[in-house]
């Protein structure tokens, strides 16, 4: 049995927000708790640390708002890799593998899990480098399959429904003013007539009124 690995996230970054990532249950994380231990499904603790540091350079937390760490992007990626996506359950992956034009997309043999394992290893001691050197290192890998994937997954982890482990506390949706999967503003129109108004975002679970799970939870 594989020893359980965890990633420690500073609670100040997740402070007071709902974290939907612990054991499939929403947990309110308080800033006072210091750090929160999130069990990992695919990454080792060291890998998760590297991935988190890289995501943070792709979508940093800065004066323009929170970033990948606050949103829990690494948890989103960890879950996707542990699930059917990570092992290419639904991608046609029989040989022979042939190179093709870019518009055909990735045609290779390696699964997302394998691409990450290899890519993270290549990053080495990334998480211990100063920010400028981290950027330099990422820039040198910019055109690799691994980096393109990491960039795409960072955006997905920022802005997908929190049921998938990222977008903690709807932080990504608040950042871009996305209202969530609402069907209509009908109930609000008369209340706010003539006033500038933006709805507080809601998750799918909040809209439907019960817990929802993503396809990454699918059993083998």
């Amino acid at each position, binding site marked *: 049995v594989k020893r359980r690995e965890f990633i420690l996230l500073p609670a100040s970054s997740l402070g007071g927000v709902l974290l939907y990532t612990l054991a499939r249950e929403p947990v309110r994380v308080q800033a006072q708790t210091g750090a929160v231990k999130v069990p990992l499904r695919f990454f080792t603790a060291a890998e998760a640390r590297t991935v988190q540091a890289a995501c943070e*350079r*792709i*979508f*940093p937390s*800065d004066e*323009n*708002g929170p*970033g990948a760490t606050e949103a829990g992007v690494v948890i989103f990626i960890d879950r996707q890799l542990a699930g059917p996506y990570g092992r290419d359950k639904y991608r*046609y992956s*029989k040989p*022979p593998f042939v190179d093709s034009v870019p518009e055909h997309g990735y045609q290779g043999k390696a699964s997302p899990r394998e691409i990450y394992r290899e890519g993270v290893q290549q990053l080495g001691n990334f998480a211990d480098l100063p920010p400028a050197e981290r*950027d330099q290192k*990422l*820039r040198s890998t*910019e055109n690799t399959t691994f980096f393109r994937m990491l*960039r795409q997954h*960072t*955006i*997905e982890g*920022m*802005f*997908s429904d929190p049921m998938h482990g990222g977008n903690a506390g709807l932080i*990504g*949706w608040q*950042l*871009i*003013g*996305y209202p969530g999967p609402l069907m209509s503003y009908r109930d609000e129109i008369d209340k706010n007539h003539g006033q500038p108004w933006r709805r507080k975002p809601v998750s799918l679970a909040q809209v439907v009124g019960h817990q929802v799970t993503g396809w990454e939870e699918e059993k083998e």
Partner: protein
Amino acid sequence: MSTGEGPIAGFGAIPPGEAKSDWGAEWKKAALAWHDRVAAISSEAEHLAYRQNYVDLDPTYTDKYGDPLIRLTLDWTEHERAQGAMVTKIQGQLAAAMGGRAIMGTAPDSSVVNPWLQHWHAPNLWVVGGSAFPQNGSGNPTLTILALTLRAADGLIDRYLKRPGGLL
């Protein structure tokens, strides 16, 4: 204007030159600023029924039962390329003509036409179409354009023709 693609697919598109790469602080700043200010126009064209475009059984790849996959063979010809070039040109014209060219509003200092789609300063000029919308939502606006046009026609026939001049 949003691309109407939702928060993931719609994120990260920025005009050329706004950031040096497509990740990092500079890109994030531009992507957030442009998030609901970018739009895409796309078109669908057709491949004619050429003899060289066909489906057959793949000689190499099989499904999980060992049966051949379907293989699609499709080659672009000069016709499709010319079609693409023409559509791109038309898209540019569409972009210039769509939403926001003669916006409808409640006052002449902030809009071009009044709610009857009548020009504020030239009462004998009526502008119907999507140009009346200050911006376009993601939904299809055709029925709304038709409804506004019917209303403009009512105003023109029932009010303007009886007493020419600004209706408001």
